């Protein structure tokens, strides 16, 4: 895997594809974030990508993300003024200038959103993230395992309304911020987990931007066979090849939950599987047999084009390949499983590593 040092429109295209793969079906289509960044890159220089080790220990790093329902972002795009305002709110709170932008979630839309801020403000972006994939709630980051607080946090909507949070725990931040996200129309831009380079060096999941760039290049090169290459190179497992037979969605409390029924095709003909999702795919089952569970990644690829498929675009008749990828080792401790394992999402299933 080649490390990237700067990102232009071409590299961003690969990053958006790779980000959709690690989105594990969720986090929204990175395409929207890619177009936002492209619009900035019309007038700005390519975004510099740096290793966290190159920063002084006390340098301030600001993660930038979108919070809320990805479906909303497919319809309602940000105004574009959010990022400058967010960073200046955070700098005021931290009483410090920001040295670099960070991607908190290398999966889904949030894999490309930080590039908008970096391009717009002319700041470098750190090669890494705090999930190694996409997760639905903001406390589900490696920083929580390191005892780092999500606040001070700033949130802003497309209309220009801003808010800051100071909370007693990351779970509370999630609860309060989510409630406000709904009032802001279902999606908002946030900056949270302001970290020093020193904290980052310890708890960052490193080089995940280079990883999603690599994954994107594999998808582009191998199209519908990409899942096979990725299974081999990233030590994953081809779980199923199927046609979508039914999708049931329910929405509530700021999330879309659902169940997808799959009917096997090709080598899997005659077999049936079921996927549960809460924005991301969380559980893959064949009858009573668990195929994969969170925090391992369940990634779907369009069987025709090889492109990653998100839960939003799941529909009857779509044919897919289901790939299981092992999560970052940081997620396999007992403490981590309590934070992001199946039980947290109210599935009565024990985590079984892929």
């Amino acid at each position, binding site marked *: 895997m080649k490390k990237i040092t700067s990102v232009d429109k071409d590299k961003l295209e690969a990053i958006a594809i790779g980000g959709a793969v690690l989105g594990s079906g969720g986090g929204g289509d990175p395409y*929207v974030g890619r*177009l*936002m960044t*492209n*619009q900035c890159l019309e007038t700005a220089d390519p975004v510099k990508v740096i290793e966290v080790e190159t920063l002084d220990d006390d340098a301030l790093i600001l993660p930038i993300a979108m919070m809320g*329902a990805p*479906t*909303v972002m*497919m*319809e*309602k*795009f*940000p*105004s*574009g*003024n*959010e990022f400058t305002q967010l960073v200046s709110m955070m700098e005021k709170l931290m009483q410090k200038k920001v040295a670099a932008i960070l991607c908190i979630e290398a999966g889904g839309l949030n894999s490309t959103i930080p590039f*908008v801020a970096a391009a717009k403000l002319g700041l470098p972006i750190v090669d890494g993230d705090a999930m190694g994939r996409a997760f639905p709630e903001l406390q589900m980051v490696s920083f929580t395992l390191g005892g780092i607080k999500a606040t001070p946090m700033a949130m802003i909507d*497309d*209309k*220009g309304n801003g808010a800051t949070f100071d909370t007693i725990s990351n779970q509370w931040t999630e609860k309060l911020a989510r409630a406000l996200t*709904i009032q802001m*129309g*279902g999606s908002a831009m946030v900056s949270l987990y302001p970290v020093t380079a020193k904290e980052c060096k310890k708890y960052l999941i490193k080089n995940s931007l280079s990883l999603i760039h690599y994954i994107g290049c594999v998808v582009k090169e191998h*199209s*519908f066979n990409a899942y096979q290459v990725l299974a081999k190179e990233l030590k994953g497992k081809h779980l199923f*090849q199927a046609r979508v037979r039914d*999708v*049931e*969605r*329910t*929405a*509530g409390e700021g999330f*879309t939950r659902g169940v997808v029924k799959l009917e096997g*095709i*090709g080598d899997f003909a005659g077999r049936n599987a079921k996927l549960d999702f809460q924005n991301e795919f969380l559980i893959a089952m064949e009858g009573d047999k668990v195929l994969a569970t969170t925090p391992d990644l369940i990634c779907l690829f*369009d*069987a*025709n*084009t090889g*492109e990653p*498929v998100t839960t939003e*675009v799941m*529909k*009857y*008749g*779509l*044919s897919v390949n289901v790939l299981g990828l092992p999560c970052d080792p940081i997620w396999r401790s007992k403490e981590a499983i309590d934070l992001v394992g199946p039980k947290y999402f109210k599935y009565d299933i024990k985590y079984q590593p892929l």
Partner: protein
Amino acid sequence: MIRIGVDVGGTNTDAVVMQSEKFLGGAKSPTTKDILSGVENAITAALNQAKTESKDVEALIVGTTHFVNAIVQRKKLAKTGLIRICLPSGGSILPFADWPKELVDSMNGKFQLVKGGFEMDGSEISKLDEKEIIIALNELIKAGCDQIAISSVFATVRGDMEQEAFDIIKKNSPNIQVSLSKNIGGMGLLERENATLINATLKPLAKEVVESFDELRNKMNFKCSMFFTRNDGTLIQSSEVIDSPVLTFACGPTNSMRGAAFLSKEKNALVVDVGGTTTDVGEVKDGFPRQAGTYVTVADVRTNFSMPDVISFGLGGGSIIDTEKITVGPQSVGHELTDKAKVFGGDVLTASDVAVSYGRCKIGTKEAPEIKNKKNIINLMDQMVEDKVARARTSSEKIPVIAVGGGSVMLDNEIDGLNVIKPPHNDLANAVGAAIAQVSGQVSKVILIDDKIDRETAIKQVTDEATNLAIKRNANPDTINLLAVSDMPLSYLPGKNLLINVTVVGDLKMENK
């Protein structure tokens, strides 16, 4: 029941006469500049071959690829302006994002963002301002636009702001034509907006096409109704085509795939349709084209209306060849193939000339010319087809490739390791597909799921409504099949509201004579 199916391609116009499942006759005639005389020639020849008179025909069904060709070749596009109702949201991705620049230029694409739009729960982002709409409209008119497209945030949840903007525009400029995104596509602002822009830019051409067909129908003494085929292989009235040409946008590929499956009796296969300007590659499952799962890219523009999953690219019998640079298309002599191609005595080197010269087929009136780098060019052409066939496959299963379309004679006998079938009348597959087109019933409804009604019952209720609609439109009740069903919850609304879409299809039923 006797029906005529007509397909107007960029190069040839095809017509077939069918009696139920029986092929009575068919003919191919060069597409003429005025469209009309080519269609007349094809229909006349087909009727003669079938020994049938126009007064006995019970349905005249037309499919035309004019619209998609106009976009691909960037020709006859109306100057189009977009008003996006979104502010203060929306500015981070401006309209025409990710469009090929030459396409934007060739339709003089302009846009204005104005205040308004809805949140997901149907509340207003901001109020629509009549004055702002008029200013935006005047800016677009000043920039030369004579077609207006309107998009609004969450128009799929609430379409009333688009309607309001429509009324304001019509009050101020009664003659300007307006396309609304809520009538064109589903969720996804950019994709729906893109489809609406394409619809708007095609409207004048659509009117021209429909009017000329109507004139012809009268002139040729047809007593029956005329229909057009739409993207899903079903029929619509000609009046609907004038307003929403984009709904018939992909009928060419759909008709040729349905025709290919019908003619070859292969219900599961890949279909390669080689026309004069473009080639379409797709897949049929159970006789129907596989629908695109996610978004659909048309001439490099991302859209989201329901269409068959087709890969379209610029290779056809009329593709212009550069022997120095070794390139094929996308420029094509199109309907002038029989004047301009060298094998027809012209002076433009086309893909057909290469195929004849290489010995793949025998067409034309003249000897094949000597061609430099002939082998490299034919290899490139094969490679272009093979790449797309590989992409259209869903598995390594050895299903056949059905080759159809006038240009299919240029194809090799094996593509991507798959056997190529060239069924009888394969050059008329599009017209056959049009002739066998069915009637659809499509219903889209929001239903509140509660103690009284569960999801399954709600879907059944909508399916029954769609079925009744199809029957009302003259579908034979015994032949109705479920084509597509989807349900999507409207989040952040009190209770559990489901947006349910159902499409059913059935055979056209005619009064027995």
